[in-house]
């Protein structure tokens, strides 16, 4: 059976539990589902986080990443939901889920997808601290994480 790819750019809050339940239900044949949820840190300092996207590139780039993941691991399905817009502390940013016959493929696929989303997807991030917005520069750690796969 051909693996199913579901890639979405969410412009409004999404519920990770609902997404994961639907994804799991759609893949009863999978022996394992690995998921990662990224959320806005509630650290008492950051008041809001905004992710800006560029419509012509952001979703097409995520879809290309999804196809690359499917080509690299034996998956039954891959789900990526990524927020854009303004988020409050504790709100979900990104959900990646990989369903596979065998867990190692699912772990690796989700890990790979996250490293690439962090380092090369078309998002620009800024944080609001003490009422002021600050653009976030790329992190060396994100490039290093991606380099693990090359």
């Amino acid at each position, binding site marked *: 059976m051909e693996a199913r790819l579901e890639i979405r750019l969410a412009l409004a809050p999404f519920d990770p539990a609902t997404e994961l339940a639907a994804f799991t239900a759609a893949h009863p044949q999978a022996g394992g589902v690995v998921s990662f949820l990224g959320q806005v840190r509630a650290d008492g300092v950051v008041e809001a986080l905004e992710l800006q996207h560029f419509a012509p590139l952001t979703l097409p780039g995520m879809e290309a990443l999804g196809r690359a993941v499917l080509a690299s691991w034996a998956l039954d399905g891959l789900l990526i939901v990524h927020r854009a817009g303004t988020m409050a502390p504790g709100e979900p940013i990104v959900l990646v889920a990989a369903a596979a016959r065998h867990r190692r493929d699912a772990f690796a696929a989700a890990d790979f997808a996250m490293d690439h989303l962090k380092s090369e997807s078309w998002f620009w991030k800024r944080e609001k601290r003490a009422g002021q917005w600050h653009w976030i520069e790329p992190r060396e750690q*994100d490039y290093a994480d991606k380099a693990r796969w090359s």
Partner: protein
Amino acid sequence: MKARLVFLGKLADLAGAGEIEVASGPLEAVLATLSPSLAVELLGERVRMALNGEITADRAVVLGAGDELAFLPPVSGG
């Protein structure tokens, strides 16, 4: 005969707007109409460009009427 420049991320703050209309023509001539400090940032080696939604590395691009040229600073992840 207008073209559009689109600025993502911190470039929009530097430009004072997310997009501006400019007279069409060669990129070099278009940038010469902007403030020098903005032009220097736009030409930074880590800034990428998208012409009508497609990545281009052509710094000699000539903007025609209705063209959109976006300036994309380094991405900062999800």
